[in-house]
């Protein structure tokens, strides 16, 4: 037994009556090491509307750490050892230099928690050609379409997947007339684009579309301003808000001219993970995460957890740490990953997007899980969300 394992057994022996060595005779072979890196950059706290939600510095990282722990519990029985190296680039640091110096030629799997531009920059590096990058941060549909890279897998649902999930729910509720409010940021516009695409796809009608502008006019107060802003001659069923940064979205609910529900980036939101989610064994991972992190699991944590677990699952199944074999298995038909959301997760072979259910959550209650029942698909209902194979503009130079 390698010495690391011996040390581990001694520790575990102190806790348990049964030695870990009990399992050893079955897999006496030497351990195969699989190394995964986690790359992110320091962040400053963005301006916030409220101090209710403290700024979380290590979003993503704890998820990756939990994933490694789970991989290694499996590895104890299969003779594989998974290692995680965390690289946090300082605020003024250079991502590309860091990648080339610390990760290139050393890691075949890199979990990337960076912006869309930074991710593309990394993916195009010569040193990244033999690396599989796991994007745990971006929501951009462009990265999954015309800008797609064959060495990148995307763990979080794209904006189109989120908008489709919301649209399915609104269709089920027969909220067919939408008032779309768009924030004046790039992300707000991208989310609004996804909402417009979903409206078209599901035959919904955007009766009003308005841009929310930030001004410093002292006469504007939220109480009066939202009412005036939402006053319209065209009746609508629901106010759809596109404000990913959370600059004004929280102000809308209860202040609209007509009493209408708020949905989108605030109110009822579409997300990969939420603290209100407890079905399908989710309670177990919520508990395990909270015990480790002392906080709730955020979307990036969930994505990083899944990325590391995907490597673990594919490495265990193929009995290999080799990237090309692992990647082939991951993109193959038999790959199935548990995401605690009621359906097996897999990767879309045409754009590297993780195929997954999308949770529709209110602040304190899980309202629905998309795909909503009744939205059918010849292959898997999960592909009713986002860009399906025939619509995809991703052409991987394979």
């Amino acid at each position: 037994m390698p010495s690391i394992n011996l040390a581990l057994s001694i520790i575990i022996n102190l806790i348990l009556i049964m030695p870990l060595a009990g399992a050893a005779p079955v897999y006496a072979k030497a351990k195969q090491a699989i190394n995964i890196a986690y790359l992110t950059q320091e962040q400053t706290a963005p301006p916030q509307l409220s101090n209710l939600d403290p700024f979380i510095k290590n979003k993503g990282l704890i998820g990756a750490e939990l994933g490694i722990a789970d991989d290694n519990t499996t590895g104890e029985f299969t003779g594989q050892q998974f290692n995680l190296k965390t690289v946090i680039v300082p605020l003024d640091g250079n991502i590309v230099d860091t990648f080339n110096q610390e990760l290139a030629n050393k890691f075949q799997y890199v979990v990337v928690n960076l912006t869309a531009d930074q991710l593309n920059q990394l993916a195009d590096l010569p040193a990244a050609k033999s690396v599989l990058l796991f994007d745990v941060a971006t929501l951009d549909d462009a990265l999954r379409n015309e800008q797609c890279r064959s060495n990148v897998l995307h763990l979080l649902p794209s904006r189109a997947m989120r908008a489709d999930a919301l649209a399915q729910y609104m269709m089920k509720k027969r909220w067919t007339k939408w008032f779309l409010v768009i924030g004046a940021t790039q992300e707000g516009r991208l989310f609004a684009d996804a909402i417009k695409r979903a409206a078209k796809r599901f035959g919904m009608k955007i009766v009003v579309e308005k841009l929310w502008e930030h001004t410093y006019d002292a006469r504007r107060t939220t109480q009066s301003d939202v009412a005036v802003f939402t006053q319209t001659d065209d009746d609508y069923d629901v106010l759809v808000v596109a404000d990913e940064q959370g600059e004004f979205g929280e102000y809308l609910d209860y202040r609209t001219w007509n009493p209408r529900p708020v949905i989108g980036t605030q109110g009822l939101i579409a997300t990969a993970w939420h603290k209100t989610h407890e079905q399908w064994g989710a309670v177990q991972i919520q508990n395990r995460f909270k015990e480790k992190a002392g906080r709730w699991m955020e979307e990036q944590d969930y994505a990083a957890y899944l990325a590391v677990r995907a490597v673990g699952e594919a490495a265990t199944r193929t009995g290999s740490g080799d990237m090309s074999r692992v990647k082939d298995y991951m993109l193959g038909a038999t790959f199935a990953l548990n995401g605690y959301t009621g359906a097996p997760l897999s990767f879309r072979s045409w754009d590297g997007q993780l195929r997954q259910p999308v949770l529709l959550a209110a602040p304190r209650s899980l309202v629905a899980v998309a795909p909503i029942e009744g939205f059918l698909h010849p292959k898997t209902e999960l592909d009713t969300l986002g860009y399906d194979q025939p619509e995809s503009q991703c052409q991987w130079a394979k």
Partner: protein
Amino acid sequence: MIMNKIGLTLILGLVCVGAVHAETVFVTLEKDNALAVVDPVAGKLIKTVPVGQRPRGIAISPDNKFLYIATSDDNTIKIIDAVTFKEVGKLPSGDDPETFALNPAGDRLYVSNEDDSLVTVIDVAKKKAVKQIKVGVEPEGITVSPDNRWLISAAETTNMVHWIDTKTNAIVANTLVDPRPRAVSFTADSRQLWVTSEMAGTLMILDASTQQIIKTVKLEVSGVTADKIQPVGVVIDKERRRGYVALGPANRVAVINAQTFEVEKVLLVGQRVWNLAFSPDQKRLYTTNGTSNDISIIDLDSQSVTKSIGVGTYPWGVAVKP
């Protein structure tokens, strides 16, 4: 003539009803914190009794005198008198007990501790935990072979079945199985272990002498997409003629020929069918349907669903007293 026939059927029917053993079906109700007591022959819910917070796993002692019920949010397994429904004791199960298994003699109880990746071994008579066995992540399905040789623990996130020697409580073999194994069940002769995989939608048959998978059955239902087929509970009849697999959100039970491993039939039951139990004479099968709040009764001679009985919110586990 026709009248005669009807008369005869009626009489036969009455005789049949009279001859049927007055068995009782017990169902844990996860969200009602209660136990449903059902007369399956009359097709009636007799009563519901409070048993503790979030009851899930349930088993009956070999002498049929006591029920063991995992009350997850009380962090214990309660011992309940099967006649008076009074609590007569508690077992130290560890945190959040869900599934557990009794050995054939009824003196050892094995609990899956999902959050801690452990199996706790409990001496039932002494009401004491005697050992904790480290297993894979999120152990769920657990069973003891009828010959008492093997304790099996299936780790959902590690995708592994652990073969534990009941004499030493040590793992002696591991079998890598399809993703998210849920339930494990031995054939009566202890020679085969049947394992369901929730994520792959498969049933795997393992040979107990080699611990290898000898057959993987992909469960399919026409008109239902693959990701809705999430096999959970599995039971096999004593003669190994047929096995039955609950398909979760596919709302069906698959009937498997236990010799050829072919799917003979799928039976529509309630929503999110979860756990299964035979009647003592193995003429009926009872299913708990998690989200339609009822149980279904399957007549095994005719292979058809004869009745569903509303029992309460989130029926989870089922046990039958002759």
